[in-house]
């Protein structure tokens, strides 16, 4: 028994020594963007910003992370401050874990939080508490309007859903049966996009909505499986409106579907772009993935440094429309957004 205690003690001492070592060499870790840390003196303000996306396994949020880091580096240089961006995102979608991350960041003295909210009902209390403690909160992609956050940055979700439906109606010639694919039905942004799809569909008398199909967890394989199941059970479906690009993050998600149905989706990421090139997806409607992180960090620093808030609490971005005509040019953007330049 004492031997085992000694083994555990030794392991703990190694851990403890590791912490102390880390304490002496914090700026060397590769995890957070401690931009300008080499020149940090006591006179240079440091703004620490936590970025909490929905899930670190979703590639759209990796672009947001790159955007946040890039904004941190740029603003550090421009303003002569030290903007430290900390990425704090659960591996899978979990609103409770997001709320715990908010609380942990607040207790760690964070200056601002940029968050894509998985479930506003669960996050509201934690975000309200953060705001009450002086933390500047900006939401991106998915909002929590009752949380007291300073601003939301992203597309107008109902308009985005409507855009998907109008593009789909265009390629379907205004006629046919449409299935709508969405992810976590508790997410406010997704439910608003679905509403947008349904409202826009009403503009086309020849279009019928078969149903709205949701799936959780929001993974590519779950989405692809759901589409295949639905299409097999309902061969009369001639159009798919995807309010997120989940199934298109796999290689062959649309086999057995694209032959009979037109498909318009959100999220022109590198893998979904391949579907446009193959002619299996007709149109992709894009969100400002890089901008989610970039603009959120900009707004927080603007408030923290200059005490300036955005003119409106809703800062809407425009859509990118990707078709076979511009798919190659659009693909070049991703090299910069993913930090490959």
């Amino acid at each position: 028994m004492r031997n085992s205690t000694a083994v555990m003690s030794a392991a703990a001492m190694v851990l403890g020594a590791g912490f102390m070592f880390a304490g002496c060499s914090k700026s060397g870790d590769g995890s957070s963007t401690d931009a300008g840390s080499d020149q940090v003196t006591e006179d240079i303000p440091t703004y620490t910003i936590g970025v909490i996306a929905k899930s670190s396994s979703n590639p759209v949020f990796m672009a947001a992370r790159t955007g946040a880091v890039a904004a941190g580096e740029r603003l550090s240089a421009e303003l002569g401050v030290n903007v430290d961006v900390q990425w704090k995102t659960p591996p899978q979608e979990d609103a409770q874990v997001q709320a715990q991350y908010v609380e942990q960041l607040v207790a760690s003295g964070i200056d601002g939080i940029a968050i894509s909210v998985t479930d506003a009902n669960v996050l509201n209390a934690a975000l309200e508490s953060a705001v009450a403690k002086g933390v500047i909160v900006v939401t991106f992609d998915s909002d929590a309007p009752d949380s007291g956050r300073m601003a939301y940055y992203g597309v107008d979700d109902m308009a985005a859903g409507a855009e998907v439906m109008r593009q789909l109606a265009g390629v379907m010639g205004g006629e046919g049966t449409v299935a709508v694919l969405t992810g976590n039905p508790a997410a406010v942004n997704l439910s608003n996009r679905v509403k947008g799809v349904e409202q826009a569909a009403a503009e086309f008398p020849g279009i019928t909505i078969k149903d709205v199909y949701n799936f959780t967890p929001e993974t590519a394989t779950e989405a692809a499986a759901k589409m295949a199941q639905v299409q097999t059970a309902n061969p009369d479906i001639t159009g798919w409106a995807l309010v997120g690009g989940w199934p298109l993050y796999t290689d062959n998600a649309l086999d057995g579907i694209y032959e009979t149905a037109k498909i318009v989706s959100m999220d022109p990421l590198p893998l979904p772009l391949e579907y446009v090139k193959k002619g299996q997806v007709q149109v992709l409607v894009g969100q400002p993935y890089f901008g989610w992180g970039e603009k959120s960090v900009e707004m927080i620093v603007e408030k923290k440094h200059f005490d300036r808030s955005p003119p409106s609490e809703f800062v809407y971005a425009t859509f990118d429309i990707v078709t076979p005509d511009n798919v190659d040019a659009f693909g070049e953007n991703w090299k910069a957004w993913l930090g490959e330049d």
Partner: protein
Amino acid sequence: MSDAPSTRKPGVTQGQRRTLGGLFAHQESGLIIVILLMGLGLTIFGALNPVTLPTQQAVEPGATVTVLDKQNAIHPTGVLGRTDISAFRVTDPDGAAQDYRVSDGWWYDSEKFQLSREHTVNAFLNTEKLVLIVKDASFIAIMAVGMTGVIILAGIDLSVGSIYGLAGIVGAMVLTKMPADMSWALAVPIGLLVCIAVGGACGFANGAMSVGLRVHPFVITLGMMAALRGLTLVLPSELFETQSISGFPESFTKGFFKAEILGVEPVPALFMLAVAGAGWFVLSRTVFGRRVFAIGGNETAARYAGIPVARVKILVYTITGALAGLSGCLAIGFYGAGETNAGNAYELRVIAATVIGGASLMGGRGTVIGAVLGAIVIELINNSILILGIDQSYNQIVMGAAIIVAVVVDQTKQRLAAKRG
């Protein structure tokens, strides 16, 4: 401190137990040392890398705030950047002015009409952080107390995460129908009763099916995990047309489960302590507890000894379900909403906490205190990654390594004990 009376080693004398050396002979002593040393390391790190926390101070109504630059020239707010500001000047309606210097940590938010002053604290060793770690651990730890009994029985319960989610969503459906001004004395018992009843019923079903159908609990609870998760998705969708339910009486959330006491929100942590105490008592000081260890050690022998194996097993699974329901109730009370994804994959965290706490998946061994400490170790690792500024993506790698190390150390301990006879 081991829950099993039978695990007291003959080599450790009564006299030794009274000494510090005796203390180190307990099963949980290694975990306590790990926690203390991690805490020590984090405290030193936190002292070398302190964090700043703001204290707010409202500006008096009618007062005006202006900004002084480095040359003490006056500017309106929102024009200069922080690096160009030397002080904020607050001028009272009667003309009296007071300067709040940026070099002293003062800052002003024109939107909230509020001054704040930053003060530095240890990044780890501060009350808010410590209570937060224990609070975050409590949801898992409470379920781990039940899981300890199951694992001692050489069983497993893969459905605790789904029970946690279902109990929470059913509790939320009931609470959202309660009057907004309902007293906490009514709202809290109703919430607890509903969630614990749902959890207990699911746990009873696990135990009864496993025993009655003579199917390994892995299979039964795997099936229940999927079925209960499906029910969690379907119920609110069919009855409320939503996947997330909030709008409880405030007395249930901020009035009780999220109540602030001395600047922290400790209620889930207090529940965890109460459950851990009760669990320790039941497993180590009651006939029922002795029976659980006896069945886990040798089920056939226990049956020949006249122990009602089926009844004990069903009761253990029922208690585990009820504790998952209690944990779900704490979660909806603390976060103010029930949602269909709640508790997804939590069973793995609960099992990890139990195993790190020294429970043997072969059965016959485990402690409630160890399971609670295991949950705290997991949360400490989680928080360490944030405090040390390590990429969050490494969290799962560290967590996985911790589980493997804990099991290897535990097995080494068993081999050494066996060699000593």
